């Protein structure tokens, strides 16, 4: 394939809130440029994972190469980059954006700007993008294009006078979008004669081809047979195939500057292909890698356990399979006295956690129980050493801990006026610090600093319920900060239940400790002995409940004809106790802990 002049390439992404029509617009663009026949079209071509399509979220970046003859008579190559749309994947998003020069900002003409839109558009601005506002769903009776244009100018600060008005659903003015891409977005820059330098945007595992690497070439060329080097690790691979997505995979001779496409090179796992890495030629390498590479680090951890202990091996295999395609989550074996054998797993965020959990149960048919998610705390010990805490159960003795730091976020919440009070109360309860409060029409935008650990504990659910589902929420990292944090242990019959221990701010410790004790009291059936349930900070009990002993349980009649039946029943009960967890002289059904954890989620 001959090099396409840079002037006739446009690389762009689409920014939109969930449900504002990003995928539908992408589908229309693909159709309008004839990349797929009508027969090949299926709804939301780009989201090829079942889960992604169902939930309308994109986990992996994808590209489609569109060929478009513009009104100026020239043929243009338009590379559409579909980026993950959630803060959990913020780094992945930033790399996808770094592969483009411009973005379409799609806003629902009746709903207006949402929190997620805002966070993503700022990222695009940070990436130096030219941005074209697109108002979608203007065919709806509730569409208010003038109001939404004004909102874009007020809230985001982007001129929106010449926003493109479309209906992706009906196909109205798709042409206008294509023309705007050609005329209003800048072409890429690059040097065809410089040493090869390409951005590794994303990668995924294909059972037939091995790892498929999505790249954006900056300088030089990538071609079949070439020895390439990953600049962060120095690993060398021989390219087997390069190509583009139309969205079908179509091999090409080479990929030149400004182009997007894929390569395969017999790479076995995606863990060997780090997002944001720079790919160069092994013999004539580039002098400097592209800026901004950082390895992905899990920020939310939880324990995952099979409900049926016999599924442990299956869980191990399933996690290994998932990791083939998702190098950003981590897992290591862990044992819990309450839940048995399982894994401590690290995720990029709560959505990531939820996605992995859902995929495990859906694709691998596993019935799982997750412990309460925990953020990563930084502990300064009295000897000056810093350690990271992934699991509250591993918290060292309080006397050796000098200080604890916790991660904070900056959250942006959009909410209709009517629910603002409730949302502010919620944020304040969760130790939030107000940064900004502005009104746009009858909607308010609240920006709060919040400790992440207050957000992983049922914040979304509460936000949804206090705003009747009308609040939209997004966040970005805001660094670590020292806090008055304590580890709360839950003791059953005076023995700690590792899976239930958690970190909390001292001010909330008693309330949350008591809530768990009360919950367990309801869940654990009365037994032969009374069972104390306690919440404790170190050796100090902060809440206590007692499950009293059962008052009467004896067979009234037991004679010569009943012995066999009674013995067999007893033997069956003993067998059933193997599923119980021993706490001294009492045995607690695992189901009680599972129920306690489920109620948390």
């Amino acid at each position, binding site marked *: 394939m001959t090099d396409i002049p840079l002037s006739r390439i446009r690389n762009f992404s689409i920014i939109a809130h969930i449900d504002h029509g990003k995928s539908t617009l992408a589908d229309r663009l693909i159709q309008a440029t004839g990349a797929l026949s009508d027969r090949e079209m299926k709804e939301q071509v780009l989201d090829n994972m079942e889960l992604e399509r169902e939930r309308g979220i994109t986990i992996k970046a994808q590209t489609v190469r569109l060929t478009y003859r513009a009104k100026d008579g020239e043929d243009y190559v338009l590379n559409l980059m579909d980026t993950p749309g959630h803060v959990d994947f913020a780094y992945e998003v930033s790399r996808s954006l770094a592969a483009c020069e411009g973005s379409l900002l799609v806003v629902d003409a009746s709903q207006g700007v949402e929190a997620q839109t805002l966070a993503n558009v700022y990222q695009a601005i940070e990436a130096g993008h030219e941005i074209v506002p697109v108002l979608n769903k203007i065919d709806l009776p509730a569409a208010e294009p003038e109001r939404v244009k004004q909102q874009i100018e007020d809230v985001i600060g982007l001129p929106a006078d010449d926003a493109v008005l479309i209906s992706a659903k009906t196909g109205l003015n798709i042409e206008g979008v294509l023309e705007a891409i050609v005329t209003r977005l800048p072409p890429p820059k690059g040097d065809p004669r410089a040493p090869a330098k390409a951005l590794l945007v994303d990668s995924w595992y294909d059972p037939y081809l091995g790892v498929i690497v999505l790249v954006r070439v900056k300088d030089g060329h990538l071609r079949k047979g070439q020895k390439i080097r990953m600049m962060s690790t120095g690993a060398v691979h021989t390219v087997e195939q390069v190509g583009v997505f139309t969205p079908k995979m179509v091999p090409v001779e080479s990929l030149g500057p400004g182009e997007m496409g894929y390569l395969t090179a017999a790479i076995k796992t995606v863990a060997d292909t780090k997002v944001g890495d720079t790919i160069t030629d092994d013999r004539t390498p580039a002098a400097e890698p592209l800026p901004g590479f950082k390895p992905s680090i899990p920020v939310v951890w939880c324990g995952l356990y099979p409900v049926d202990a016999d599924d442990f091996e299956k869980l191990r295999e399933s996690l290994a399979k998932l990791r083939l395609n998702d190098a950003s989550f981590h897992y290591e074996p862990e044992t819990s006295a309450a839940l048995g054998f399982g894994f401590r797993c690290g995720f990029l965020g709560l959505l990531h956690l939820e996605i992995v959990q859902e995929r495990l149960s859906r694709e691998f048919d596993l019935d799982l129980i997750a412990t309460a998610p925990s953020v990563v705390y930084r502990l300064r010990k009295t000897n000056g050493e810093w350690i990271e805490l992934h699991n509250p159960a591993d918290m060292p003795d309080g006397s050796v801990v000098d200080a604890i730091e916790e991660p904070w976020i900056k959250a942006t919440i959009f909410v209709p006026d009517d629910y603002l009070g409730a949302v502010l109360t919620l944020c304040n309860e969760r130790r939030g610090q107000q940064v900004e409060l502005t009104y746009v029409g009858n909607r308010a935008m609240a920006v709060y600093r919040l400790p992440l650990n207050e957000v992983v504990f049922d914040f979304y659910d509460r936000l949804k319920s206090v705003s009747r589902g009308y609040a939209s929420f997004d966040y970005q990292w805001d660094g670590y900060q020292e806090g008055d944090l304590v580890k709360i242990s839950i003791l059953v019959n005076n023995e700690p239940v590792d899976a239930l221990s958690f970190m909390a701010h001292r001010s909330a410790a008693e309330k949350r400790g008591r809530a768990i004790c009360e919950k367990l009291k309801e869940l654990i059936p009365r*037994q*032969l*002995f009374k069972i104390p349930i306690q919440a404790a900070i170190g050796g100090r009990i902060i809440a206590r409940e007692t499950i009293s*002993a*059962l*008052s*009467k*349980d*004896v*067979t*009234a*009649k*037991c*004679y*010569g*004809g009943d*012995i*066999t039946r*009674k*013995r067999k029943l*007893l*033997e069956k*009960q*003993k067998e059933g*106790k193997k599923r119980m967890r021993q706490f*001294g*002289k009492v*045995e607690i059904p695992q189901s009680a802990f599972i129920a306690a954890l489920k109620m948390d989620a």
Partner: protein
Amino acid sequence: MAEPLALYIHWPFCAAKCPYCDFNSHVRERVDQGRFRAALRRELAFEAARAGRRPLASIFFGGGTPSLMEPETAAALIADARALFDPLPEVEITLEANPTSAEAGTLAAFRAAGVNRLSLGVQSLREDQLRFLGRRHGAAEAVAALELARGLFPRLSFDLIYARPGQAEAAWRAELREALALAADHLSLYQLTIEPGTRFAAEHARGAFALPDGEAAARLYAATAEEAARFGLLPYEVSNYARPGAESRHNLQYWRYGDYLGIGPGAHQRLTLGGTLRAARRHRAPEEWLARVERQGHAITAEEALSPEERAREALLMGLRLAEGVDPARLRARSGRALEEAVDPAILAACLEEGYLAWTPEGRLRATEEGRLRLDALLPALLR
């Protein structure tokens, strides 16, 4: 001397099925008394031939309603047993009977046949309660039957069912005092239990009535022991109360985990043969049982040697029902397992500390009243 035997003989027929009863009982328009008599005698002879000539401690006619069999049947079986075994001088021969006037008429004949202890299924002294329980007798009839029986039999016991739906403690105390005044030396006082497959189970499941909850049932249980004690009757087993010396020797044989023969449809048996304790049971359906005995001399459907673990569990689950508890030496002799092997030491210690179990001065392990009240929860934790 070989250990004494107890002999249980099952009569599987009733005039009507009571709504709470899950025993092996059947209602038939007519019963061929002669054939059943012959078959019971034949099965007894079969077991006696295996067991050998051993001391005989007791005979118990249970059911069903054994007072519905012809007294000649009891007479023949008692005579056979006396001939096949060596009856102890104080051999206890019990017959279960219902206190209907029809059955009362045959009591003298049963006494003549050799029965020396009568156990009457009175169940309640309140008319409405007798109707609820599906009984075919009235309260006055029951009292009359008791008075008649007291004149006929040297020993007398009767059953009552309590912890009935909505039963107040005061009402039960009053009813029980009336019963105690009728001067039996032994009472079986059962809390109403809903057994699967009974009419009550279906009614209870659809909410037709509710039983007292655990706390209320525990209070009624304590009240029962209190009232019985005033009349000198002590709880020697979970549901059985007697004047000292008047305990049912036959039932003690079960709870002390001795050998017993079980003759008749559905009867269970524990018999030591050649040093091995064997558990056997017989076909439950009366007609099939009859056909098998006539064909092959017995209707055993399953017989197995019990392992030391099984024997120890059975000995303890029965023995801990008794106020006297379990003698570790006897447990070891009967099961081949020491008490320390048979129980979880941590649970034992916890139960001793909690006051559910106690050691007697003679070194027996016994369940206290608090322990007996929770025995079904205690046993699965304690036994290994």
